[in-house]
């Protein structure tokens, strides 16, 4: 053990799992520091479909995950109500779905402890009139819509209250180990300034998700990850009020999740060698729309705002000695805590892999149980008992609240930087007060800037001017990075109105403003944009 350690535990990865681990460590009295190579919630947690699983999706293929999901579903509703919109969910059998799956479903749900109540079709179609009229059976399950950015921020805020620290734009570049192989320190590089820094510690938890294999390699351990790319489409309005799932084995385009003013159609599942591969292919888009048609006929004629992909932190089951499978959906989504001291001779190093965003807290608990025991800390986990900090309202974010607040001040557009998501200059200033080093893309995650139908055409230059006033010289690189990020998510769904919107955007940036000719010599340090986001 490292006697001169600055902290007890370094946590690598600023998604839901890492934030959950940090909070759990801090609540057990351990000194903990989280490092994230990009912005918080910019990896898989920020690139998922927004579904708080009931677990019913996995009752057949992965009963362990199913049970974890329903238990954590109840926990999160208790400790994080402000991040959850209780939409409810349905599993619906279309004429294309297999009879035997439908027959086994109720018993499998009961077995996993998931309440699945049959719904008369008339009631279903009254509640969800856009659904396929040929749906032949439906069950109501406790699915919900979950806001990942706020969930991660709440976990980080709680961790800070308990004395922990979290730093973003810190990439791990090296592990220091003692003669017996144990980890003694982690070396990180600040992705913006390039400065390097060594953090002495007694233990390290890698919560790097799909990137955990790369982190393990840096530590001298091996970890066979099998990242599963999942692509999703954002449609510009809510097609349904509740989450809709196909009553069939997991497949492409079988989930529709209402999220705020839009809905998300997901997902594909493609095993990719590189977790940074977030490219949505045309085949994936076609597959999603084709399958989406079976849930909501005509959905492929709707306006698609954006496509995006996340990288599932799937762990290659063959590495655990289980049966090997090529299809990543067949690999268990249940989580595994890996003690690399026992496994690879790298003492004090743990990886947490697999799992779902819904089960992040359980994953954190199991990890911290192991780490705490190794550090002779016996304090039990309390993360399921103590609610997360929440906004004063205690209710989920709703765009209508922003509109009401604007109207209470007299309404009008003068204060709005982003009209689609009603982001005022005051809100941007507040976000910059909180995290002054934010790029425009970071501000998007905290304020929803540029996430509406115009995908930033109007708000980007306005927000760049706000940023320039705060950090002279930083705005141009940030603007270019944000434009590239918005463009990446639009071009694979560029047809109809959204293609015309892209052309309007081009007309503004290249025609009127000639952004490509902007001077490239900002007086202060340039910003690093994350390639994956």
């Amino acid at each position: 053990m490292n006697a001169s350690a600055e902290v007890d535990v370094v946590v690598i990865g600023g998604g839901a799992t890492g934030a959950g681990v940090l909070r759990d460590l801090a609540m057990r009295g351990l000194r903990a520091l989280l490092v994230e190579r990009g912005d918080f919630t910019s990896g898989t947690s920020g690139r998922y479909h927004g579904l708080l699983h009931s677990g019913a999706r996995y009752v057949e293929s992965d009963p362990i995950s199913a049970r974890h999901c329903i238990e954590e579903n109840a926990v999160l509703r208790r400790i994080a109500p402000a991040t959850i919109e209780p939409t409810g969910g349905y599993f619906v059998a279309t004429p294309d779905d297999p009879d035997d799956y439908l027959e086994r479903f109720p018993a499998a749900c009961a077995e996993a402890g998931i309440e699945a109540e049959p719904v008369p079709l008339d009631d279903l179609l009254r509640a969800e009139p856009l659904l396929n009229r040929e749906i032949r059976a439906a069950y109501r399950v406790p699915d919900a819509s979950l806001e990942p950015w706020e969930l991660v921020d709440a976990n980080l805020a709680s961790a800070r209250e308990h004395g922990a620290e979290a730093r973003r734009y810190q990439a791990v570049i090296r592990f220091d180990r003692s003669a017996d192989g144990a980890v003694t320190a982690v070396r990180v590089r600040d992705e913006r300034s390039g400065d390097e820094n060594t953090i002495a510690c007694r233990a390290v938890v890698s919560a790097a998700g799909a990137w955990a294999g790369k982190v393990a390699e840096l530590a001298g351990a091996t970890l066979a990850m099998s990242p599963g790319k999942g692509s999703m489409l954002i449609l510009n309005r809510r097609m349904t009020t509740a989450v809709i799932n196909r009553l069939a084995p997991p497949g492409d385009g079988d989930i529709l999740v209402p999220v705020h003013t839009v809905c998300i159609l997901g997902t594909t599942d493609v095993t990719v060698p590189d977790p940074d591969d977030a490219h949505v292919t045309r085949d994936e888009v076609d597959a999603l729309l084709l399958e989406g048609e079976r849930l909501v006929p005509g959905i492929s004629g709707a306006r698609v705002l954006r496509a995006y992909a996340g990288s599932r932190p799937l762990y290659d089951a063959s590495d655990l000695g289980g049966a090997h499978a090529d299809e990543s959906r067949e690999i268990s989504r249940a989580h595994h805590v890996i003690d690399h001291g026992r496994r690879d001779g790298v003492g004090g190093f743990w990886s947490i892999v697999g799992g779902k965003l819904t089960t992040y807290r359980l994953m954190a608990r199991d990890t911290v149980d192991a780490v705490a025991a190794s550090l002779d800390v016996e304090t039990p986990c309390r993360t399921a008992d103590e609610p997360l900090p929440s906004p004063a309202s205690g209710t989920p974010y709703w765009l209508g609240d922003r509109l009401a607040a604007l109207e209470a001040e007299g309404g009008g557009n003068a204060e709005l930087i982003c009209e689609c998501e009603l982001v005022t200059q005051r809100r941007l200033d507040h976000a910059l007060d909180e995290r002054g080093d934010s790029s425009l893309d970071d501000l998007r995650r905290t304020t929803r800037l540029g996430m509406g139908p115009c995908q930033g055409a109007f708000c980007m230059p306005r927000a760049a001017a706000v940023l320039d006033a705060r950090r002279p010289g930083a705005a141009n690189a940030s603007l270019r990075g944000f434009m590239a990020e918005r463009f990446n998510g639009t071009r694979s769904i560029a047809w109809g109105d959204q293609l015309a919107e892209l052309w309007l955007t081009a007309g503004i940036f290249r025609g009127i403003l000639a952004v490509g000719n902007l001077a490239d010599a900002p007086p202060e340090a340039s910003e690093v944009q994350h390639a994956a986001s």
Partner: protein
Amino acid sequence: MPRADVVVIGAGLAGLSCAAELAERGARVFLAAKGMATTHWTHGGLDVASPAAAPTSRDGIRLLAAMKSHPYRILAADADASVAAHLARMASEGLEHIGSLDAPLTGIPTAIGSLRRAAILPLAQAAALGPWDGEGLLLVGFGRYRDAWAPYAARNLRHAQWPGGPSVVAAVEVDLPGLERLRNIAPHVLARMFQDPAWRTRALSAIADALPAGAWRIGLPAVLGLDAHAEVHADAECTLGHRVFEMASLPPSVPGLRLFEALRRRILASGGRIQVGFDVVEVERSGRRVIAIHTEAASRTLRIGGDAFVLATGGIGGAGIRARHDGTLVERVFGLPVAAPPRDRWFSDDPLRPHPLETAGIEVTDDLASPNLENVRVIGSSLSGMHYLDERCGDGVALASAHRAARSLAGTKAVAA
């Protein structure tokens, strides 16, 4: 039901100019458009042809005309006459311009602080053109007006490569009277306020009070009035005691609104008719000829018959061409075939670089006729083969093709008045 010699579809620069010229030549013209067009997105200058290597617009036209399948390949000869006719038309409506095809293309500042190459500008933007004679550039923003970014633009311009540019670039933010109480502050709202002489006097003196000492040219947001624009601009220069130029920012573009209104007035004054706001829902044909279009009017469809038809509905941006999710491209009025690159090459990786898909459009014969429909001419951004943003040639092609179509239709039986 309306009947016309020529039915023009689309109200952008091409459609409006074509309808105006036909009406001036005595044709019975009906212009139908589904909505306001891309004039409202523009910076207000005239992009005739400014590809990167061209010193003048004339050189630019020559370079573009040498490219296979560029519209200038067949339109270069019309550039002089069409630009001259356009500038005369604008002048007659009170919108004077400066510059010519032979004027040097020089960098003028944009609202974000980059330099855009231009040669032909409305008078109210002329002071942005070099050479600068030792004056400084002072950018003025208005308090609470979110689309003028004077300090940001000034910082960018101080770092720009700007040979022969201003001696110094500065920025100042001015609170205009009453703006603190206004809830909606859009460019056209401010433009209307500037039309009011009493408010204008107070607003201009507020700006004058904020001016630092020195010899300046002053860049103001492009909101200096609508139909009284010339008077507002002259007033601004007189009160401020410096040359003043407008800088267009995010849409709606007030210079574009003025252009639209000037051409609209011109068409109406010459006896043409205009219907804006309704889509074409049906096309009547007889063999390879179009007999009539039907538009979706307020309470029933309206049949508009004509001897000739001009398609000026624009490209993808103007919504004349629409992509389906399977990647097919549809010309929305007549269903003409669209020439475009294969779908896997539609985009470049960088949003600031030209995308191959920008060249999508309709292929035409040398007199702009559709090979599929013998009495349909195609003009403006509906034409295939140009990268209008990078080549900065959209306005020039719009004017030259509008002029070519109007001239050729005026010479046929269709307009035998």
